[in-house]
Structures are given as C-alpha cells and as structure tokens.
C-alpha cells in the first residue's frame, strides 16, 4: 500500500520536474523571468479535461499532443504580446506580465461555471492507449518518466545547439547578439513557446494523473513554487530544476507531516539564502562552473553574481 502511495508521489514529482524544467529553459538559459509558468500548465490541464469531459476522448494519442499544442499556442500568444514590439520589454514587465496572466487565469477558473468554478473538473476518465488504461500507479510512472527523459534530451539538444548558444548570448549581453544579426526578441519568443509547450504537456499529464483539475493548477502559488524549486536546485542547468523538485518535494513529504506550519517558512528561508549567497543552488555542489553553456574557456569578465544570478549556469 505504501509502495503504491510512493509510486503516485514520485510520478507527481516527475511531472512537476517537467514544469520546473520548462521554467529553467527560459530563465536559466534565456534570462526571461516567467512568474506564470503554471498558466500554461493549468490551461492545458483544463483544456484536456474539457476534451475528456465534453468530447469523451481520453486517448493518449489525442490528449498529450493536444496538451502540448495548447501550451504552445497560449505561450506563443502571450509571448508575442509581451516580448515583441517596438520597445524591447524590461525584465520587470515580462515578470509582471506573466504573473498577471497566471493570476487572471486563476480568477477566471474560479468564477467560470463552465470550468467548474472553485471545484474544478473532477473525476476525469483514465488516459487510454488502445486497450490499455493509464491509471495512477506503475504504468503512469513509466509514462511520466519517459516523457521527462525525452523532454530532457530535447532540451539538452536545444540548449547546446547554435540556437541555444545565441540565446545564452542574448541573456548575458543582448546588444552583442543583436550586432551579430540575430533577432533576439524572436529567439526569445521561440524558446518561450517551446517552454510553454513543455509546461502544457506537463499539465496534461498532471490532469490525468490526478483525475482532476482545479484553479490551483493555473494559479500564482504554483507558478512561484516552480520558480522556487528551480532556484533551489540550480538554474542554468537542466538537471538542477529536476533535482530541486525532487529534493524539496521529498523534504516536504516528510516534513509537512510533522511540521505543517513551519515547512513553508523553511522554504522561504531557503529561497532567501539561495538568492542572497548561493546562486548556483544545490547543483553548484556537484557541477563546476566550467560546464556553463555559452562560456568557452575562462571568462575575462569577473563573475556577475550580483547581476542576475543566472550567470553561473552549467549543463
């Protein structure tokens, strides 16, 4: 029984790791601060839940591509609004824009009867593939694990490609990348929508794993929680956010039982320590700075710890 419970817990952690990965792809590698990653996660979750409820379709070959597409379209639209235009946006504007998007979606989901209001959409049918049903448990765990592994490899390929290096360049010194003839805003929009697609995929997986979607899935709390996990694990690396989610969720799993009141406070203190003194996060204990994407050989510049906190990325 405990084993089942653990399997379900680990599956959920893997799906959240996918979401944290999508956040880090745009913050750690591209310097776009998204405080609204749960927007794509939750919207895609609601989307596939509606597909299952109203159209009665729960085939994995429909649901997962649909979740991916919903995340992609939504992030493309929001990203185009926030990132493109005559005035290059400030980081604060993007951060507030994404935060606002998540907040608005939360309010909308809570008050819209069609989406189930406060209660969300309960009792989704299990996801199916041919004759198989993906219920909570071992099979779903393998599914989530394979998706995470595939997405991880895709991201690894992306950040190590020419495109990824240009992005890292735009993160560190945007004008230089512009002089090379890259259209930095479009690069950023591309990676923003890729990240939205990943978040959407995670949302679809999460919805069918829990068999339920609710307003908390799109809200600010989840959005900021993901930021926190990624920072704790170590941004600018792909494995960092995964580690961050695993470590914090596991710690929360044990601690939240014994100290339910103190746990969020500890989380806040940890985040404060990370932002102040320890920008590399947990991963900094293991991986050296040499592996950082976009830096070959030794940098002639002094490390810019105070600047963004992402310049310590590794891969």
């Amino acid at each position, binding site marked *: 029984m405990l084993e089942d419970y653990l399997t379900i817990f680990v599956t959920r952690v893997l799906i959240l790791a996918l979401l944290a990965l999508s956040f880090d792809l745009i913050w750690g590698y591209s310097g776009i601060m998204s405080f609204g990653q749960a927007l794509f996660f939750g919207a895609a979750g609601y989307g596939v839940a509606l597909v299952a409820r109203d159209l009665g379709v729960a085939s994995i070959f429909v649901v997962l591509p649909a979740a991916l597409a919903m995340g992609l379209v939504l992030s493309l639209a929001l990203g185009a609004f926030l990132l493109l235009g005559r005035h290059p946006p*400030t*980081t604060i504007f993007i951060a*507030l*824009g994404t935060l*606002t998007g998540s907040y608005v979606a939360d309010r909308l989901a809570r*008050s819209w009867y069609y989406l189930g209001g406060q209660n969300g959409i309960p009792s989704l049918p299990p996801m199916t593939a041919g004759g198989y049903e993906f219920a909570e448990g071992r099979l779903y765990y393998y599914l989530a694990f394979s998706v995470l592994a595939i997405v991880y490899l895709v991201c690894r390929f992306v950040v190590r490609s020419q495109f990824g290096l240009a992005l890292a360049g735009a993160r560190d010194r945007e004008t230089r990348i512009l002089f090379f003839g890259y259209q930095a805003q479009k690069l950023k929009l591309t990676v923003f929508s890729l990240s939205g697609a990943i978040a959407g995929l995670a949302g679809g997986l999460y919805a069918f794993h829990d068999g339920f979607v609710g307003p908390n899935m799109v809200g600010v709390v989840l959005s900021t929680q993901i930021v926190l996990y990624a920072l704790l694990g170590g941004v600018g690396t792909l494995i960092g956010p995964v580690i961050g989610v695993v470590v914090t969720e596991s710690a929360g799993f044990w601690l939240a039982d014994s100290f339910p009141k103190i746990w969020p*406070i500890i989380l806040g203190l940890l985040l*404060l320590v990370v932002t102040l003194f320890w920008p590399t996060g947990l991963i900094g204990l293991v991986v050296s700075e040499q592996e950082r994407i976009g830096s070959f050989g030794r940098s002639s510049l002094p490390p810019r710890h*105070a600047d963004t906190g992402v310049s310590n990325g590794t891969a």
Partner: protein
Amino acid sequence: MESALSATFEILNFGAIMVLVVLGLGIIAGMMGIFNFAHGEFVLLGAYATYLVYSFGLPVWLGMLGAPLVVGAIGFVLERLVIRHFYAAPIVAMLGTYALGLIIRESVRSLIGGLYITVPEPIVGSLTVGDVQLSRWRFAIVVITTAVVLASYLLLTRTSLGLRVRAAIENPSLARASGISTNALYAITFTFGAALAGLAGALVVPVFSLSADLGVRFLIEGFLAIMLGGIGSFEGSMAGAAVVGVLSAALPWVVAPALADVLIFVIAIVFVKFKPRGLIAERRT
C-alpha cells in the same frame, strides 16, 4: 440617486486604499529600482500589529498608531540585513523580496491559522447624507489618505531631504558625487515605504478583516498601478493607483464582478505594453 452616491463613495474609498498601498511601493520602486514583492506582507504586518494591540484589550486606534512604527522598524532591519544586497539587481530583488514575503505571510498564517479575524472600526457609526448612510470609518480612510499623500508630496518637494531624494532618483552617481549618501537615503526610503504599508494595513483591517492572504491581492494591483503611472514619478504612481483603484471598484458595477477583475488586469497590462513610460511620461529623461 442614493445608489449613485454610495457607489461613488465606494469607488472613492477603494481608490484611496489603493493610493495608500501604492505610495510606499512606488516610492521604493522609483527610488531604489526594487520591486518589493514583500510589500503586500508589510500591509499584512500592519494589519496584524493592529489586531495584536486590540487583542491585548487596548483601543484599536492605539494599534493603528503603532503599526506604522513597528512595520517601519521591521523594514529598516530588513533593509540593513537583506535588501541592501539587492541594489542594481532588480530580478534578484524580486525573488529575494518574494522570499521575505513568503516568510512573513507563512509566519502570520501559523500564528493566526486560516482564520478571518475581524477588528472593529475605531470610529463607529455612519454619516447620513440625504438618504444614504456612509460609514464614518471609510470616510476617515479617505481623509487620512489625502493627508498622508499631501504630506509625502510636501516632504518630497519642499524639504532638503526631499531634494536629496529626488537627486538620488534622477541620477544616483551624480548624487553620490555631490556628497549625498545614497545608502542612507535608501535605508530611509525603505523604512518610510514599509511604514506607509503598515499604515495602510492598519487602516484597512476593519474593512477587509485580517487573514494571511490579505496582502496578496494588493500586490499585483499595486505593481500594475506603478507601471501604469510610470516608475520613478510621484504623480505618476498616484495617478496609476487612483486609476487602478477606481477601475477595480467601479467595473463591478458595470460588468459581471468576475469579469471585472480580469478586465482591470488586461486593460492595465495592455496600456503598459503600449505606453511603457506610463501615464505621466514627461518627467522621465
């Protein structure tokens, strides 16, 4: 006629509350370039301090007087310990102040639980204008807000401290070269901003009742108000706050309340997108 009058009063009242919240947020953002994500929690602390004084059996107004002092002192300590590491790093500042806010919010939650606690109004009763009953306390909020905004404005434009503050906003390095200690000014500014948030929290707690999430809704609206008004301008922040406050109180009278909430944010963010310098742009160089 009556409903129009009470609607106007309601809108005015909420506009005033918004202005009071944004005043501190805007001063800190304009002066230090720091978007203080813990501002909502400073509001919460002000409310909590008021409740604490009241729960000891002391009069509510005493708590309201004490709240800005307490929250200001907390702000000062935090500035010295934490915030000063964040200058010139706006994103790290966002994350760091968010962490601070989380710590404060969860600490208060663990103290009061998930409850909604009501605190009585220090001035009870209502004014009768024609056939309409207007709450005396809500009226007092409007008056106090006006006084505080006026005082802050005079402080900023008529005193030598204000001159130095404006110099530090306009050109920090030149201000330092002229012998102004921007470090000390930042400490004063942050303390002042925190104290204003504490005052806001103390004043609104009888209206909204105390819960751990009291500050959250003010935060996002406050930021939008500042961006709407233009960062770094006193008049801009105040105008932005008034617009956001009035809109969020007025729109529910026009469209469905759930939609109104969404609409305010959409309007504000679209406006900021196309007018990134805000409502009052000419002060920016």
